[in-house]
């Protein structure tokens, strides 16, 4: 590898083994939260590997107990405070471009999710062809608690989970374990962490990009995990009934109706979680997931980029800054959302987040052209 390694490049470790490249997210203290530099580096590497006939497979993993805990939003907020919202927008522009590239990648990406996978970490893995969960996996899209919304293309992949599980996961930020990830399709395989070194070694010997071959290699280390009896995945009937409702208000009242029928700790907790989240976030998240269900991954990211720019700009609501203050900076865990109630948010306000940003030299997200590559059906189906 290159001899003059800058400290930033150290945040992504690169290992080359014949036809496989292993990229390790290396910011363990920050749970591998994606910095702007890491995203830029990943983008650069993925672009280069696509052109390189000697690369057939890309493995992505994390150092330490996390795969990746998300985008480094604390840094984003700092940048916005110091500079302007566009500095934040630039972060997401790069990140979403990376997400798109991964979703439509012409070579298989295997992500080893041996630990925390949240927000931006999900974006850097779920779009790829193979996602390997372990007994250590913890998945969540916690954005609504932070005044944001599930971005990084989550409106694409959440909306494609069985039934209305995606709405549930996206609105409540509920945590899923490896077995649940496999059951709902966020993960494609489950491998006990003890077997990971062997799996990685086997993958490094692969000389093919054929997904069937790679899948069969992973299969050799797979185990069928059993769902915890308390698993939310066993509550799909309730989730479908409630989270299919038209509006957040109706979802809440459907949940409340369920509690009337029988006392249920899980439902009450779900209601509490929703009540604690930013009302604006809930509304735009629901709308985004619903729209995502009917769109390809590209249009999903373009829409999310519009939304995230509105959030960064803070003209409609400043909940994101309040959420970061309360959860990441002051850590008082007591955000004061504004507007404070769902009923106070008109449809027109929600519409704003989906409109173009009215600012000179702002542009919609321009996704890289993918037509020059011979994309596999897996990628084509997402367009």
């Amino acid at each position: 590898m290159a001899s003059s390694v800058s400290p930033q490049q150290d945040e992504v470790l690169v290992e080359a083994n014949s036809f496989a490249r292993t990229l390790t997210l290396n910011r363990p203290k920050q749970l591998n939260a994606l910095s702007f530099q890491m995203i830029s580096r990943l983008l650069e590497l993925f672009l280069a590997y696509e052109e390189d006939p000697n690369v057939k497979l890309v493995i992505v993993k994390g150092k330490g107990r996390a795969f990746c805990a998300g985008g480094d939003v604390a840094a984003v907020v700092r940048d916005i405070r110091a500079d302007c919202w566009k500095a934040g927008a630039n972060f997401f522009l790069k990140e979403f471009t990376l997400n798109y590239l991964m979703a439509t990648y012409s070579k298989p990406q295997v992500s080893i999710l041996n630990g925390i996978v949240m927000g931006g970490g999900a974006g850097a893995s779920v779009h790829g062809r193979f996602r390997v969960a372990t007994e250590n996996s913890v998945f969540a899209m916690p954005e609504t608690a932070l005044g944001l919304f599930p971005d990084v293309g989550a409106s694409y992949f959440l909306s494609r989970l069985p039934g209305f599980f995606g709405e549930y996961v996206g609105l409540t930020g509920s945590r899923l374990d490896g077995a649940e990830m496999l059951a709902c399709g966020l993960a494609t395989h489950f491998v006990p962490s003890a077997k990971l070194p062997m799996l990685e070694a086997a993958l490094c010997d692969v000389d093919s990009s054929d997904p069937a071959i790679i899948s069969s290699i992973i299969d050799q280390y797979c185990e069928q995990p059993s769902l915890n009896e308390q698993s939310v995945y066993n509550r799909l009937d309730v989730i479908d009934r409630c989270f299919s409702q038209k509006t957040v208000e109706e979802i809440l009242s459907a949940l409340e109706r369920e509690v009337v029928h029988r006392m249920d700790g899980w439902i009450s907790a779900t209601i509490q979680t929703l009540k604690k989240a930013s009302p604006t976030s809930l509304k735009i998240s629901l709308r985004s997931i619903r729209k995502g269900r009917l769109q390809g991954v590209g249009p999903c990211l373009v829409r999310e980029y519009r939304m995230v720019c509105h959030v960064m700009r803070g003209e409609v609501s400043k909940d994101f800054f309040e959420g970061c203050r309360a959860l990441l900076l002051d850590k008082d865990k007591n955000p004061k959302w504004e507007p404070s109630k769902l009923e106070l948010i008109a449809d027109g306000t929600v519409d704003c987040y989906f409109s173009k940003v009215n600012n000179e030299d702002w542009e919609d997200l321009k996704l890289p052209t993918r037509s020059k590559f011979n994309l596999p059906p897996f990628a084509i189906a997402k367009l």
Partner: protein
Amino acid sequence: MDRAFQRSKILTNHLLQSSASSPARIRSLSSNACLNYTPPEFSENYAFDIKEMRKLLDRHNVEERDWLFGMMRQSKVFNPRVRGGKVFVSPDYNQSMEQQREMTLKRIEYLLERGVFKGWLTENGEEAEMRKFACFEVLSIFDHSLATKLGVHFFLWGGAIQFFGTKHHHDKWLKDTENLSIRCCFAMTELGHGSNVRGIETVTTYDSNTGEFVISTPCESAQKYWIGGAANHATHTIAFSQLNINGTSQGVHAFIVQIRDADGNVCPNIRIADCGHKIGLNGVDNGRIWFDNVRVPRENLLNSVADVSPDGKYLSSIKDPDQRFAAFMAPLTGGRVNIAVSAVYQAKVGLAIAIRYALTRRAFSLKPNEPEVLLLDYPSHQRRLLPLIAKIYAMSFAANYMKMLYVKRTPQSNKTIHVVSSSFKATFTWNNMQILQECREACGGQGLKTENRVGHLKGEYDVQSTFEGDNHVLMQQVSKALLAEYVAAQKRNKAFKGLGLEHMNKPCPIIPSQLTSTTLRCSQFQMDALCLRERDLLNRFVAEVSQLKSKGESEEHAFIMSYELAEDLGRAFSDRAIFQTFVEAEATLAAGSLKDVLGILRSLYALICIEDVAFLQYGYLSVDNATAVRREITKICSELRPHAFALVSSFGIPDAFLSPIAFDWIDANSWSSV
């Protein structure tokens, strides 16, 4: 450049395949077909904002529509199947008739549970009605059986209760209907009488001793026929019957009759049989009903127009039986509006599939070793499909106009609604069948596979030209109504007002002797040409009918004899009325890419109307001018070719509701998917 790339790719594949040695390699290369699927998303681009275009086409409740699409896509009940890595929802038409019927019912129950029908009968006002329209359009995109079964329950039964019934009927039935605690049908058609409702033979008398009506089927031709929902599921029906009071027939009236108990057992004195397997729409349980002196309480007469007192006196504020009948039939226009609109959406499904396929499927090379030509790059293929886009856009604008007319209805606008909905229903449903047939053929053999939808939909939608009024009968009614307008205007020596006939008051438009491209694309010329045909045909129709009458023929017979002119006139009215809505929609837009492309489509729509044989037959166009029209159509088609993808993407139909050939049809058919 693209072609060179394509060619090199094919060559590379050949070379790689011949040099493959290790087993792993063979496996990886065997899935690497010679032809690659290139998604139209890569080769085509959008010259205008397709979201804005969709808003213009769908016009209302876009969020609501998408919610409902998503609701269906996410449920097992809607039979999702994965093809080519994508999920498609569509009923399993390979199921038996009985299974299809049960699935239709299951889907209705699923939608009910999710609150889709909330307010469909208990809320009023424009907004609620538009929402209902939007949901219905979306449901019909999934399956015509689903839409039809719901249409019968909500719009025919529900509409009859709302419009023919009075307060106590509303209080008693609407809520139960909305939450489907009763399942309802609508028994109007008989074996012997369909479009001619006034001729039905079912008879009802009143028994003042018990305060009951007695309904009976006096002969086999009086059996109720094609009653959707009657064969298996319905618990209640509205029976249309002649009402005979003390030996005097008071004409057709409507009665509520329970036909099954809550457990599904057929009630006493009711006989029900199945209509059997049909060429399509097998998810609807059409049945036949015989009434054997069925007794129903006096309140079961839907009495908004006429009533019978407890002691058996017939009471009606409308003395003229003709008017009474018209008042009865007025609510049926709602169903007609629905049918017309859903025909447009079905045509959208067919065309979106055919265009997407034509943008990815190649056939024949022009020179050896050259890549084959994309179907839509053949001018002939463009000529077959692109005018259909123009037709669909025109129909969408017309449908929006008709829906607004309907939800803003007043007693004064009833006639206009009747004429417009009759003519649009006939035109749209005929167009739909024509479009689906063309799309089926344009998809070649793939069009024959049920899972690809285009071909199968023909069978599912064929019924549209018959139910709620045979198309030809409706078109004749349109011409009759126009004739009546003409006679009324002449009699009172007044100007034409309404039905868009105001152009009759102006001097007759003149077609230039030599049509240039500029003239042909001018909306004023296009409007003039369409008005000229309507005006002239109306004059001719009036003259022919009055000439026949002067020879001693009855008016009815004169109409029957003038059927050719009547049909030509009906079409002329329809084309002109549709065109007008197109011009109006275009006028609402500010200058820009959206307006530009709509201008091209508007011209194409006008010119395919002007291509109609009537323009030559009646001499509105010279042979030279007719040639110029054709030449211009070809030219416009090639101009529209780059917009084809954006134009069908603007229909806003989610991928899951199209079909496998609209996407990666190579992967969908690959060995690994077998």
